[in-house]
């Protein structure tokens, strides 16, 4: 069962090949069997079986949807009522969310079954899942390597077939980079397309939730449920949601693909460069035209991103003060001691680094030089994309300059880790949608192809990804031992 697509699983449920309870139990068994991967922070076994039972009743009657009875696992950044929601942090180790995120509410309404909560970098700050309070996650393709991050548990779970599809969030590449490193398909939607309500904030102007799945076809099904306007999120966009599956089979004849030359400079691993080249050639065969374009300010995306994201997170994480929820230190001597120790004891080193950085960038005397400057650079970068996307339909390039690296290999140098985000973060600054799709291997490790589209063209991106997946088999590869 675990190798079936969502469409196949839905058909199986409908034709009573198996029940949702059986399907859910099968996945729970796999999750249990592959515990060593450390994909899950919380397995919601009872909750899942309860939901599955209800879905089976619904399946027996009319009104069941495509996701009714389908198990899904959620990144532990989404608040799930009655289920522990940690955001990968000791700070929230005791936090049973008292409400559901809008995204969770939508999955519940659609009849999906929540298997549990997926491991992630602490407060989504990280590119390797190693900053999680709950420990590193193993990449199923090579268990000595990282799955990427911050949605590392999400990507590894899909690659290891522990869940048919999952949710992730992407602030600077946190869906695309782990999708790339784990050989799965991930979509980071346009900023404002998916509600952020109940999705624990890292950097509010950059965060965006999206689907991670084995194929574009499955991602489209999840996206259909996740997308939509939400009055509870001021930054949510009131715009009609298209049918994401309807155009999957559209022809790519005449598609104009831009290759930003900055994506192919000396920093890119040559094996990855050739995998991307092969993928692009595949698109040529599908009728696409290729053109070189330029994003002249792309290099500045890293400093601009790290100023903006750190500034926003320094304020977003002030609410964790040991008063109303979350970790409180033992025997605080006074109020400041309560704050300083609760936060000092419960936040990990990477989170602290970013809070310090953000606090510094916003403090008196530095605000203009860092924060305002970064916001101006952000507009330059956004302008670069508008220019490029006025010349072509989509941009293509690598997701990450390297394939999965060893656990512990980069933890001593945070800057080196930041620099690896070069191909993904500019997209978040501009708020554009982008995908990562499996495009081959380098040294037996998956390589992801990034496809960046214009605002609200998720349907087109999914179509472009799906057409590629019709003529290649990369997305169907399963890591050894997880077949």
């Amino acid at each position: 069962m675990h190798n079936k697509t969502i469409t196949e699983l839905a058909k199986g449920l409908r034709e009573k090949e198996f029940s949702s309870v059986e399907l859910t139990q099968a996945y729970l068994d796999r999750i249990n069997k592959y515990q060593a991967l450390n994909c899950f922070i919380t397995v919601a076994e009872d909750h899942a079986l309860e939901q599955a039972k209800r879905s089976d009743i619904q399946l027996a009657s009319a009104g069941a949807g495509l996701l009714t009875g389908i198990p899904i696992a959620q990144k532990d950044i989404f608040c799930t009522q009655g289920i522990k929601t940690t955001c990968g942090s000791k700070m929230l180790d005791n936090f049973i969310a008292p409400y559901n995120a809008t995204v969770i509410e939508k999955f519940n309404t659609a009849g999906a079954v929540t298997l549990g909560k997926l491991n992630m970098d602490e407060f989504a700050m990280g590119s390797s899942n190693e900053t999680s309070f709950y420990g590193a996650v193993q990449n199923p393709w090579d268990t000595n390597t990282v799955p990427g991050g911050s949605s590392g548990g999400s990507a590894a779970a899909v690659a290891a077939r522990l869940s048919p599809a999952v949710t992730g969030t992407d602030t600077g590449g946190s869906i695309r980079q782990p999708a790339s490193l784990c050989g799965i398909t991930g979509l980071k939607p346009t900023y404002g397309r998916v509600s952020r309500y109940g999705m624990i904030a890292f950097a509010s102007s950059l965060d965006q939730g999206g689907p991670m799945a084995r194929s574009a076809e499955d991602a489209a099904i999840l996206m259909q449920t996740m997308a939509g306007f939400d009055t509870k999120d001021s930054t949510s966009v009131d715009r009609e949601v298209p049918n994401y599956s309807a155009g999957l089979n559209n022809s790519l004849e005449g598609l104009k693909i831009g290759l930003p030359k900055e994506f192919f400079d000396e920093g890119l691993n040559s094996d990855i460069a050739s995998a991307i080249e092969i993928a692009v050639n595949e698109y040529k065969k599908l009728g696409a035209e290729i053109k070189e374009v330029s994003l002249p300010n792309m290099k500045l995306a890293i400093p601009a991103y790290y100023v903006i994201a750190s500034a926003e997170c320094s304020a977003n994480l002030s609410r964790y003060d040991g008063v109303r929820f979350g970790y409180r230190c033992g025997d605080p001597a006074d109020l400041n001691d309560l704050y300083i120790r609760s936060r000092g004891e419960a936040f990990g080193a990477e989170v602290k680094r970013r809070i310090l950085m953000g606090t510094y960038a916003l403090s008196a005397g530095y605000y203009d030089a860092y924060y305002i400057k970064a916001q101006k650079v952000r507009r330059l970068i956004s302008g670069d994309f508008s220019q490029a996307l006025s010349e072509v339909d989509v941009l293509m390039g690598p997701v990450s300059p390297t394939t999965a690296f060893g656990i512990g290999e980069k933890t001593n140098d945070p800057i080196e880790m930041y620099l690896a985000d070069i191909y993904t973060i500019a997209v978040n600054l501009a708020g554009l949608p982008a995908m990562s799709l499996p495009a081959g291997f380098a040294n037996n490790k998956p390589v992801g192809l990034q496809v960046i589209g214009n605002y609200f063209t998720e349907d087109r991106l999914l179509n472009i990804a799906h057409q590629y997946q019709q003529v290649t088999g990369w997305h169907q590869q399963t890591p050894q031992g997880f077949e």
Partner: protein
Amino acid sequence: MSLTTDEIKKIAYLARLGIDESDIDAYANDLSNMLDLMTQMGKANTAGINPMAHPMDQMQRLRPDVATETNQRDHFQALAPQTEAGLYLVPKVLD
């Protein structure tokens, strides 16, 4: 650009963030490296460019003035480390 340990202590206090004395040098080093990275932005010519706070230049939507929330105090306070008589308790606040 490099940050001193005193500067790190000052920022850490502003952020009410406990840092082990033995880690301060490491944070000073990491933050200094991050600042070096950020000074690259100085190269960009941003004269006449408006700061961009949001990916989408759209306007704030307004909510009608209706009170629909109900009392969920017990539900929310089940999460709190210390409460009494419906209040959240903290170490004595001095004015």
